[in-house]
């Protein structure tokens, strides 16, 4: 691995990454990683289009913190948010139930604007089967007090959070004893089948109409309000007043039922988000957004390649020095190789999950996870390559009196280049494969159709991801053969006489 190679690689992936940070002329709308947010993002985009404004929707950008930071930095211009998130997570020293005007005042100095409530409050709620609730005459949470025999099933998170079940019980003085934690996905089933009588849910969950549930009225206002709003950069009021008007035009128009219906259309009936949004606005979805196979493929290829090259580039930058250290210091080497080995045993899903608190959701945590996975083959092969240099060559390198750094770069790394490159190639190919899992945390790429295809049992979709992934693996290999051919010193490529 010589220096030029490194520089070259660095160059390539910087070029590919840069556009992330770039900012261009249209208005950029972001959305979070779940259906409702994507629908609201689409609504904003379609409204903008209606107002004749060029808008781009960057879907499923990641977690709250990512969107918030992106908005502050101007990487995006607007995104849908909930007031509860603003008061609880994003702003400091704000009363828990601050209303929108006071939030507006607080956001102004940050250069951020906020619309009025879109019309619904997506907070925690307690849900029951509608027929059962009717039979028992339960409409409000307070009514539960009269039915101490009801069996409650709560998601583990809700069970344990202080502002979940424990607080709720205190506030309403609820008497139920049969309360158990369960997986949220199972909870709906359990409720529908009558195994439990009430569960926690979000008030706009698509499952509410699907299972004929009723969300009980939070009459003591225990749950904080999570009114849906759009946040936007105040600057837009100058640059794109039409867009701000379009956003404000949506305020008050979406009630909980409508939102649930749209969620259900997307989540349960598989209608595309843009179609749902256009329907709501009484338009036909714009055809050009239903991009053809080739443009989908192109986008996924860009995403996938980005993941692979960025993680691999970073891994090369760290793993080669680690491999060098490992070859120099025996003890340290054992430790480094041991640790990178342990990283390999972290199951990919768990690894992605560990990365989320650090990097949010989207490409970066995926890159971080892939980066960690790429270390071992490179570290190990760098170590093996350096340790395997013939002693007479080491000796004559030492005898020149070059400082260790120069000796490393000019003599030792080139002599170990073949082994190092083999490690990088292995890492790259494994990376192409593992990156398909990155779709799990919204990093896109070829994994998206594969995961959807596996879920929907659709071989065509699986192949739509698997085939290009295989081709990319081949391409990456080919590219590296090229690099190897170009950068392995010819002196090392001379073939022996047989």
């Amino acid at each position, binding site marked *: 691995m010589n220096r030029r190679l490194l520089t070259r690689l660095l160059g390539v992936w910087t070029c590919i990454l840069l556009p992330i940070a770039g900012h261009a002329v249209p208005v950029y709308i972001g959305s979070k990683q779940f259906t409702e947010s994507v629908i609201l993002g689409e609504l904003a985009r379609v409204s903008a289009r209606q107002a004749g404004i060029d808008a781009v929707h960057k879907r499923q950008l990641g977690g709250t913190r990512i969107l918030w930071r992106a908005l502050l930095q101007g990487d995006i211009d607007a995104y849908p948010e909930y007031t509860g998130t603003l008061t609880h997570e994003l702003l400091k020293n704000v009363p828990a139930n601050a209303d929108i005007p006071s939030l507006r005042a607080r956001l102004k100095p940050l250069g951020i604007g906020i619309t009025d409530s879109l019309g619904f409050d997506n907070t925690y709620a307690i849900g029951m089967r509608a027929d059962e609730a009717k039979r028992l005459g339960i409409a409000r949470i307070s009514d539960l007090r009269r039915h101490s025999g009801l069996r409650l099933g709560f998601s583990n998170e809700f069970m344990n959070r202080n502002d979940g079940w424990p607080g709720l019980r205190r506030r309403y003085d609820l008497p139920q004893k049969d309360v158990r934690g369960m997986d949220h996905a199972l909870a709906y089933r359990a409720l529908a089948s009558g195994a439990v009588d009430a569960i926690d849910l979000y008030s706009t969950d698509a499952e509410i109409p699907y299972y004929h549930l009723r969300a009980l009225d939070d009459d003591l206002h225990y749950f904080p309000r999570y009114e849906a709003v759009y946040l936007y950069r105040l600057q837009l009021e100058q640059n794109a007043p039409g867009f701000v008007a379009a956003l404000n035009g949506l305020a008050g128009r979406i009630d909980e039922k409508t939102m649930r219906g749209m969620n259900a259309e997307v989540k349960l009936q598989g209608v595309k988000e843009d179609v749902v949004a256009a329907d709501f606005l009484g338009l036909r979805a714009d055809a050009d957004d239903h991009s053809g196979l080739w443009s989908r493929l192109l986008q996924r290829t860009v995403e996938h390649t980005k993941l692979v090259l960025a993680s691999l580039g970073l891994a090369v930058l760290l793993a080669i020095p680690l491999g060098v250290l490992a070859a120099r210091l025996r003890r340290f080497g054992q430790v480094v190789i041991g640790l990178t080995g342990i990283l390999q045993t972290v199951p990919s899903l768990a690894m992605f999950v560990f990365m989320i608190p650090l990097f949010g959701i989207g490409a970066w945590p995926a890159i971080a996870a892939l980066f960690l996975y790429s270390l071992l083959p490179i570290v190990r092969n760098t170590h093996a390559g350096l340790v395997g240099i013939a002693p*007479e*060559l080491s*000796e*004559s*390198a*030492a*005898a*020149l*009196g*070059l*400082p260790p750094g*120069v000796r490393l770069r*000019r*003599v030792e790394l*080139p*002599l170990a*280049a073949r082994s190092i490159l083999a490690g990088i190639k292995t890492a790259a190919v494994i990376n192409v494969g593992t990156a398909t899992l990155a779709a799990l945390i919204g990093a896109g790429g070829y994994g998206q159709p594969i995961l959807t295809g596996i879920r929907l049992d659709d071989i065509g979709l699986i192949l739509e991801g698997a085939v290009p992934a295989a081709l990319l693996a081949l391409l990456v290999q080919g590219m590296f053969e090229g690099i190897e051919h170009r950068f392995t*010193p*010819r*002196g*090392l490529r*001379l073939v022996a006489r047989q």
Partner: protein
Amino acid sequence: MQDSEPAATSAFAIRQVSKRYGSVVAIDDLSLDFEAGTTTALIGSSGSGKSTVLRLLLGLEWPDRGTVSIGGHPLEPGQVLQLRRRVGYVIQEGGLFPHLTAQGNLALLPHYLGWDAARIGQRAKELAELTHLPLAALERYPAELSGGQRQRVALMRGLMADPDALLLDEPLGALDPIVRHELQDELKRIFAELNKTVILVTHDLPEAAWFAERLVLMRKGAVIQDGCFEDLRDRPADAFVARFVAARRQLPRASR
């Protein structure tokens, strides 16, 4: 190679040095002093420790007992890089780097020393002339050179930065008679004119006698005799030395 203390002009010295590899005694309680500005030939039987002496002087090996001094000061690990940069060392096997062309091998150290490409090229050309190496061979990789060409490149690499001192381990063994003869002439002139400190290991007694006033004859890690060629020839320390000096194949006599 600053002067100082006891042996005022000692460039390299080893004092009561022993070096073992496992059970093999390579150097056995050996003391030797190499004066600055002189050429010394190390001769002796194969495996007697000649190459080991050179390695000790460069800090490539460290003695089990005894001290190695450079310019009168004991050698310390921190100084070895400095030292090695000022000493041209040509190892027995050449040790050319297979990933670099001959030219690339030559340029390594000068490049680090900050020479520009023109100066490096100039010097390489000069040395190629000296060693009768075809200029085209400079562009080839070690694996593309003949044995004698490789040996000459190794010698050139040792000479490139024009070091004060040279430690040469059988540098001319694979050269043809003409080149070897001419190179002997040239090198001797250079060593004398530029006042180099040279330690030369060779198996060729005429070559040793040609280069060096002082011959050090080693056997089994110890010095058997230390003196000029005439001492060895006329006053051999023991029967081994006598055999060593006499062991020369002669050309057939002219039949006339």
